[in-house]
């Protein structure tokens, strides 16, 4: 379903809260050339790290690659294009795509390399970077529990980018640990409404 060269939002933080079964399936299938938008590229052998090792990632838009020496090596070798984005800016850019904002103004990155090539807006004497939305073709996210409609819950530090990415892609594929009957998740516990989720794939046990 996911074609060569697609732009992918992939949830997770150092592999915690990543959709591991979906990633494994992608690696097995072997298509590539992806642009991956994620917090980080995890470690070799874990989560997105497996996609890096398999050479499936042409471009990574991430906040951190420090724990994956392969990403750094491939970047230096020119095999992967890496755009480093401050973590808080990255999540707001993804959110902006999801909630239909044309951009947001942030002071993060002003006066640093992050400012390069970006529009600066001055407001009440303060300078802000105009940061633009990052939308994806597919969002691959992990959740703790889902119901069959696609309502999602998340657990502890496995939330991270998942609920935000669930708003910001044409097709959202969620990988919950278990899928429950509709009604089993009370309305107040739902963090991603079913209407945002296109497909569910239960994590292998």
């Amino acid at each position, binding site marked *: 379903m996911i074609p060569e060269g697609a732009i992918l939002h992939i949830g997770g*933080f*150092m592999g915690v809260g990543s959709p591991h079964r979906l990633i494994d399936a992608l690696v097995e299938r072997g298509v590539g050339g992806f642009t991956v938008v994620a917090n980080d590229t995890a470690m070799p052998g874990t989560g997105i790290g497996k996609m890096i090792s398999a050479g499936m990632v042409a471009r990574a838009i991430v*906040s*951190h690659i420090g724990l994956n020496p392969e990403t*750094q090596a491939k970047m230096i070798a020119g095999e992967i294009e890496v755009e*480093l984005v401050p973590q*808080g*800016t990255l999540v707001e850019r993804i959110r902006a795509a999801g909630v239909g904002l044309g951009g947001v103004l942030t002071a993060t990155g002003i006066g640093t390399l992050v400012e390069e090539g970006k529009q600066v807006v001055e407001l009440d004497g303060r300078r802000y970077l105009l940061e633009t939305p990052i939308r994806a073709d597919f969002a691959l996210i992990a959740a703790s529990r889902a119901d069959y409609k696609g309502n999602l819950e998340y657990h502890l530090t496995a*939330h991270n980018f998942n609920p*935000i990415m669930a708003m910001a892609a044409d097709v959202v594929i969620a990988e919950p640990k278990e899928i429950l009957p509709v009604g089993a998740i009370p309305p107040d516990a739902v963090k991603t409404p079913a209407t945002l989720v296109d497909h569910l794939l239960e994590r292998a046990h």
Partner: protein
Amino acid sequence: MDAKEIIARRVALEVRDGMLVNLGIGLPSMVANYLTPEVDVFFQAENGVIGLGSRPPEGMEDPELTDAGGAFVTAVPGAASIDSAMSFGLIRGGHLDMTVLGGLQVDARGYLANWMVPGRMVPGMGGAMDLVAGARRVIVAMLHTARGTPKIVPECSLPLTAVRRVSLIVTELAVIEPTDAGLMLRETGPGVTVDEVRDATAAELVIAGDVPEMLLAGVPPGPPA
């Protein structure tokens, strides 16, 4: 007492009751070991929890409860799970009372560089730029020199993390406060003279009157976290 312990103990005295505090990975995370028990704070891990606790006993790890370095942690009673938008909303929005980060360089303007060494090491900024831009107090906790080379310099040669002046620099040799008047030497390390601090510092230090020796927080009450 080794250099890192001195730094962690000194920084621990900066933590006040009721604060929300973010400790960077590595040396800054040691600060949690030296808080006095009366101080009631929430620690934030920017990957998604407020109310970070100590390391879990072996076998009690939850694979979905980790800190920003990927290490297993626990959550204290009253903890909250947050997503990355809320986490950085708290940081950028001024709700974080204090962040403690490591540094590669700090300069005379109080600007920090801590996220890359061009051509050699490019880990990425992760949350550091947001933390330095947004936290109410930014404390740099680092060794005073790197293999003999001063890390406190007239102007950072490495890419900056932010153009905001940090609140305090704590090393094993000194406590230094960047101000309008320059880098004020506030305290010296245990048994360290002012001249020794000067010799290990490439930037000019401003010294006003007698410089006291730094106080240090006591030993941790329980086993290290």
